[in-house]
């Protein structure tokens, strides 16, 4: 009883200690992708406006209200712009949230960024405990306190639980297998009891076959596995300090999900574990491409992100007035009496809207002037844009300072970068991206900064060429909804698939053991064994040629065994196979000579074989293997079989047993 009490007291001490620990977050103010090009050539992604407020404000406001006390903003591309913005914004003097910036120009991936932070960390040791890792384009209103507590408690119980990943239920589109956010369908496997993440598959799901390959050992190690395909990864992680050192140790990790999560799950580094947390009512999403820009903007307008909505001043933004049907309007915006401003629209400060305009589902920034008889639908018009009379803009993104002359039209999916001028009556074709800056070549894709300085002021404009391969994908990630014909195409393709095999990936549920996927699993080891045998043979021959010691041979074979995930019986079989192969391949004139060679090889390498042949199973495997070989090369080995069995029995097993 006394001991128990003592334990209880200690736990409470611990939790007190932890609650005193500052809550910290690392915010990556760079996505390390090129999906928002050409816009991100001139302005960092985190400063792009989302319903007229820079994205980073949403992230910071959320972190602040979730109780985070210190944020490290990691700036890379356009770092000066980000730092300038933060210093002039009210975050700089915020009483509850200390915003510190870390600047690095060398990092080209999230992995580099974390390694850089780790190096800094060793000098200054700013990050003391668990931290929240988000990118600067996250929009969320979920509470973090419980999640962090959960993570800490789990960490206390299990040292190896280094990360908690936030997931949210969100159905992917049945037709395109794309989530609302334009990312590929996510497939994860979770232990239903502990919520441990067991499998994470983002991009390799074979839609045509409607199946997913799982590692067989996954089923062996866990009594039950829950599979989801209707989850969305929120890209919000609670990490322990070990995560940073893991990045340091594995210098080839670049991508958080593709490398780090995969690495921890598959390679089983030091037995580290990742857990998941499903959020219920909160909202969390990441603006990853133009499609998710559109989706998240609409979610904000529909108030899923409350209290981070345009009519509330949550982070230095001037609040707009909310009218019926989700129309947010600045108090000094001038709307013509004959203008038809429809549902789900945001109109910023100082914007003038002319006669007879039709505006629907769009966001218009501040200081814009829209001429008369303009149609704007589903578009995002940023600040200080001039649109002259009679233009038609559908599902486009128009950046700051753009001028669209009278009668011009933007077809769906167009992106006009900063200060572009569209000529009178010009029709910008669908999905084109227009910028004043030339499209960078593939090789120098990481040198964004240089372009930011040069090129402005020139009158010519560049229409970015869309790479051949990417053109098909363009409709997937653009702001425009997927056109009818594409949808029809996909549906057609889907129907064809359905004819071939009926199995479609089911929505979440317990995996049944009689599912098709098991069959594919069984096939895989067969293939693997062939390769494994070849590898073992190669190793053995090399060992014979170079006269490597038995112990070293054992080491090599062991490493092969691990990498192919084989049993020791398989090893024994393979080694015996290679021995006999060697004996047969050695030039010989008669059966007795062959027998002699074989027995000398076995005598010489009996240590190697003996290492694996310890149990009856393995002995049987060896004999089976020999029988198999005899059948293959009946002429030569057939007569030897009986004698050899005897030889094996007496010579090896007995010795081994002793």
């Amino acid at each position, binding site marked *: 009883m006394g001991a128990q009490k003592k334990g209880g007291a200690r736990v409470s001490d611990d939790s007190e200690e932890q609650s005193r620990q500052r809550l910290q977050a690392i915010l990556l103010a760079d996505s390390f992708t090129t999906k928002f090009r050409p816009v991100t050539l001139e302005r960092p992604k985190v400063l792009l406006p989302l319903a007229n407020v820079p994205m980073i404000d949403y992230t910071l*406001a959320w972190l*602040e*209200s979730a109780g985070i006390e210190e944020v490290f903003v990691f700036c890379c591309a356009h770092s000066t712009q980000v730092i300038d913005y933060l210093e002039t914004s009210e975050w700089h003097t915020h*009483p*509850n949230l200390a915003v510190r910036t870390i600047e690095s120009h060398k990092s080209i991936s999230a992995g580099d960024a974390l390694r850089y932070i780790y190096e800094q960390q060793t000098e200054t040791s700013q990050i003391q405990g668990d931290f929240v890792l988000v990118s600067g384009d996250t929009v969320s*209103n979920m509470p973090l306190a419980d999640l962090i507590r959960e993570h800490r408690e789990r960490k206390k119980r299990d040292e190896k639980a280094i990360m908690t990943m936030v997931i*949210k*239920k*969100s*159905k992917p*589109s*049945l*037709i*395109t297998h*794309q989530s*609302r956010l*334009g990312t590929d369908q996510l497939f994860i496997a979770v232990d239903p009891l502990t919520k441990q993440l067991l499998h994470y598959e983002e991009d390799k799901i074979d839609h045509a076959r409607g199946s997913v390959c799982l590692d067989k050992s996954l089923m062996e190690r866990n009594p039950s596995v829950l599979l989801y395909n*209707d989850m969305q990864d929120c890209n919000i992680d609670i990490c322990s300090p070990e995560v940073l050192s893991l990045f340091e140790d594995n210098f080839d990790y670049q991508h958080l999900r593709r490398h780090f999560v995969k690495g921890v799950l598959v390679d089983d580094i030091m037995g580290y574990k990742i857990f998941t947390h499903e959020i*219920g*009512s*909160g*909202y969390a999403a990441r603006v990853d491409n133009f*499609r998710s820009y*559109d*989706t998240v903007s*609409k*979610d904000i307008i*529909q*108030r*899923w*992100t*409350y*209290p981070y909505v345009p009519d*509330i*001043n*949550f982070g230095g933004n001037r*609040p707009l007035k*909310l009218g019926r*049907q*989700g129309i947010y309007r600045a108090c000094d915006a001038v709307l013509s009496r004959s203008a038809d401003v429809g*549902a*789900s629209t945001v109109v910023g400060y100082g914007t003038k809207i002319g006669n007879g305009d039709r505006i*629907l*589902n769009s966001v218009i920034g501040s200081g814009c002037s829209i001429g008369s008889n303009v149609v704007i*639908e*589903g578009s995002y018009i940023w600040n200080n844009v001039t649109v002259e009379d009679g233009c038609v803009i559908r*599902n486009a993104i128009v950046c700051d300072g753009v001028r669209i002359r009278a009668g011009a039209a933007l077809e769906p999916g167009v992106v006009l970068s900063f200060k572009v001028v569209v000529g009178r009556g010009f029709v910008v074709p669908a999905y084109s991206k227009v910028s004043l800056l030339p499209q960078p070549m593939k090789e120098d894709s990481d040198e964004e900064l240089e372009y930011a300085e040069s090129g402005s002021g020139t009158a010519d404009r560049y229409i970015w060429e869309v790479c051949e391969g990417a053109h098909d994908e363009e409709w997937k990630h653009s702001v*425009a*909804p*997927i056109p009818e014909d594409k*949808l029809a195409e996909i549906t057609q393709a889907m129907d064809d698939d359905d004819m071939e095999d009926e199995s479609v990936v089911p929505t979440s549920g317990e995996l049944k053991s009689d599912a098709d996927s098991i069959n594919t699993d069984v096939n895989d080891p067969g293939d693997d064994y062939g390769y494994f045998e070849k590898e073992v043979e190669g190793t053995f021959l090399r060992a014979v040629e170079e006269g490597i010691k038995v112990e070293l041979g054992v080491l090599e074979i062991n490493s092969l065994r691990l990498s192919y995930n084989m049993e020791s019986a398989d090893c024994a079989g393979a080694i015996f196979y290679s021995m006999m192969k060697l004996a047969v391949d050695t030039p010989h004139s008669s059966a007795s000579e062959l027998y002699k060679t074989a027995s000398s090889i076995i005598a010489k390498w009996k240590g190697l074989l003996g290492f694996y042949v310890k149990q009856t199973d393995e002995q049987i495997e060896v004999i089976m293997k020999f029988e198999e070989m005899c059948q293959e090369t009946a002429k030569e080995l057939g007569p030897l079989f009986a004698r050899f069995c005897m030889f094996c029995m007496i010579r090896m097993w007995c010795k081994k047993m002793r």
Partner: protein
Amino acid sequence: MPDVQSTVLEFVNKLRKRKIEGSQATARCTVELLRSVISHHRVPHHANQASALIDAVKAVGAQLVAANPVELAVGNVVRRVLHIIREEDLSLATAAVAGLDLLDASDDDDEDVNNGKGIGYPAMSAAVVAAAARSTLRPPSLQTLLEGTPESATVPYTSSSGADSESKTADKSSITRKLKHDVIEGVNQLIHEIAGCHEQIAEQAIEHIHQNEVILTLGSSRTVLEFLCAAKEKKRSFRVFVAEGAPRYQGHLLAKELVARGLQTTVITDSAVFAMISRVNMVIIGAHAVMANGGVIGPVGVNMAALAAKKHAVPFVVLAGSHKLCPLYPHNPEVLLNELRSPSELLDFGEFSDCLDFGAGSGSPLLQVVNPTFDYVPPSLGGHNPSYMYRLIADYYSADDLVM
């Protein structure tokens, strides 16, 4: 001063993030914040003390109101404090005119009255003098009649302080100190009033709730809870119907507390209000705000309950502390009557995410979710007589402060 600034900022932040909920809590925090603003306020001696104070309070008040325009209690309390400053200034002026030198030895060194010692001063309170002065200048107001300030209390005060007089120049600084002191006294009384509003309202419970009655309420209100419990404590036995107040289901919380206090409670859905109203003797609800025209802003669903009560001629009682009395009219474009909260309170995002897929189809959202927080009950459905409201508002607020 800097620490006041930081507390203001902190409070503004909380208001913005909607971290403080409920009119009473907000009103209390606001008035305490304003007290520290006033007590830390330093003005140059030559300036007009009262107007400087008013400007300081107005500046802070404007920030607070802008932080959460929906929470009308913030604006109300700021206006009340402004009114107190004006009244105290007026009383000092009239006292000076009347030849009453208010500078006696009592304006001692307690500038730092902000830690609330207000009640120790009742007989000498300038508010009393103000009331007396006002009564000479204006016709007696309803407030003074209701609050029944003892006229005799002023008598010893005037007699005691009328004795010594000093030179005008030396007075100046002490007048400013006196004013600040008195204002803080007044604000302390306001704090006291806001803190005690539940008890004061609950005192009247016994006169409204009778034996074996059935009371209907909607949503959760602390005032209503105290009111019902006060009647229970007086050995009244009655039953309470609680409409659950979807989508936030605060009625569930109220039901829990009522049961904990030993009241017979029945929880019904909001949509069952009309069906149950015929068995109900009285509807009692708490309000978010009472507007100048007598209209009431309450939790969503209140209008329906009021209509049902009207239809069945059931008395409809609204309980509200004085800090909820808003001097503005609901048709004023400055007044934000409602706030739309997140649709996630109504719908599960995961289930409906396929309806919000903008990638397919026309790209325009077909599903709209509206989740209002409040309901407006027009004065025609009960509520107060507008002329009575006008009187109350004239007592609590000065006309100069209505627009901030």
